[in-house]
């Protein structure tokens, strides 16, 4: 556990210095502030616009961190050979993967925190405090989604180049959000192969739409406790599954 924390701390230290990350955070904050102006041309729907655009900006920031910074994480260590100093140490390779995941998750939470604070300040200034609860729940859900994407990009980062790892993770992102298409296909198609194929994809690929409650935030609707617990359990189980296969690949890897 101590080693995992050490690696996580080091990863956090490394990633928060990344200028790309700081630019992305800055852009996200700018978007949140710009929504004040977009809101003014939305004909009395300014609060809705501010909330929707801002939580989407925060979400986009989380996805960016997961996909682009995650895909560089392992690869950078291999390329620069900084791994040569860590791997021979008394630390399980699995602990390195978990540590990296935790570190990048901590980075995601940190940038999410800053951008969410800006959003809440904007809403506070506008006198709209009724959305705080739904916003926080939505951000929590999207953080769970970003953790899964971090693990997916870590897996690909350990087997291929950063570009291919990003492409593969983006593909998983789209597949994960296309669950409604897949459902529609396997419920309506007559082709057995297509139906069963889609069913397999639907059940095995991560269903990222589960973590999307952004549509309900502006209506103040919160998911029930049962749904929330089920979603957290799904994220946990899938995360363990991803950690397992990443560890299996990473353990056998030659450097």
């Amino acid at each position, binding site marked *: 556990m*101590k*080693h995992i924390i*050490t690696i996580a701390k*080091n990863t956090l*230290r*490394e990633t928060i*210095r990344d200028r790309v990350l700081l630019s992305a955070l800055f852009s996200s904050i700018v978007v949140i502030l710009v929504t004040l102006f977009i809101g003014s041309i939305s004909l009395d729907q300014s609060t809705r616009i501010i909330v929707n655009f801002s939580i989407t900006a925060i979400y986009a920031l989380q996805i960016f961190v997961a996909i682009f910074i995650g895909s560089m994480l392992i690869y950078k260590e291999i390329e*620069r*050979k*900084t*791994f*040569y*100093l*860590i*791997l*021979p*140490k*008394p*630390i*399980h390779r699995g602990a390195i993967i978990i540590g990296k995941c935790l570190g990048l998750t901590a980075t995601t939470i940190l940038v999410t925190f800053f951008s969410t604070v800006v959003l809440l300040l904007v809403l506070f200034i506008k006198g709209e405090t009724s959305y705080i609860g739904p916003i926080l729940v939505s951000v929590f859900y999207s953080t769970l989604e970003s953790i899964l994407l971090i693990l997916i990009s870590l897996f690909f980062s350990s087997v291929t180049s950063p570009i291919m790892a990003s492409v593969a993770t983006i593909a998983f992102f789209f597949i994960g959000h296309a669950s409604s298409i897949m459902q529609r296909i396997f419920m309506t198609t007559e082709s057995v192969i297509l139906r069963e194929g889609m069913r397999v994809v639907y059940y095995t690929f991560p269903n990222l739409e589960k973590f999307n409650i952004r549509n309900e935030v502006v209506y103040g609707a919160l998911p029930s406790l049962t749904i929330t617990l089920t979603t957290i359990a799904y994220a946990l189980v899938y995360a363990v599954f991803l950690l397992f296969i990443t560890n299996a690949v990473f353990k*056998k890897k*030659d*450097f």
Partner: protein
Amino acid sequence: MYSIEIKNVSKSYPKDPEIQIVKNISLSIKHGSVFGFIGPNGAGKTSTIKMLVGLSHPTEGSIKIDNKSPDDPVLQKKLGFMPESPAFYQYLTGYEFLEFVASLFDIKDTDERIEKTLKEVDLLHAKDKRIRTYSKGMLQRLGLAQAIINNPDILFLDEPLDGLDPLGRAEIKKIILNLKSKGTTIFINTHILGDVEEICDTVSIIDKGEILVTGSPSVLSQGYKDLEDAFVTMIQNRRKERGDILIEGH
């Protein structure tokens, strides 16, 4: 009792499985001795040392260090490794990096140990400077520092004197000899033969993945002008036997 036992180890990479980087090598290295692994560039020295520290795995054969596999975390606590031209996290200071390494070894008296190690490699004055400001020599010293911070019983050094000026090399050699006197088993990869004669008890010459000969420097030099002459001649002869192209005039 042998500290390191390498039995019939071969290594090839999945991309080119027909090309063997290391071909069926066997070595036994005694406790407390300094073993030199010498060979030209691309001979397979680094590939071998990587297998010894668990960075890669042999395609065939077995490696035992103190009767344990190189991946064993219990063994890794007693092991030190300095890679060739070590790379660090540039944003850390020397002290912070050693602190990070020390936490991986679960070292308790961290501050004292770090100070002591930095003093040993003559980097105490630069402990609070960012690693990105370090010179080549300082980076080599820091690489050695992270390898010895846990007071290892077995130490693997890949080209430890690479890029150092004569003064730096003398200091590193002094540290190696000091460790030897404490009973540390040391495995050194190098192609600088003058240093090998000074510090190594046993030497193996490797070329194109094959071990040509193993023995003490004095024994290997018998019949030749010096160890360098022995090294060059043996390699040339072996390449002739294999039908490889020779470098004229040597």
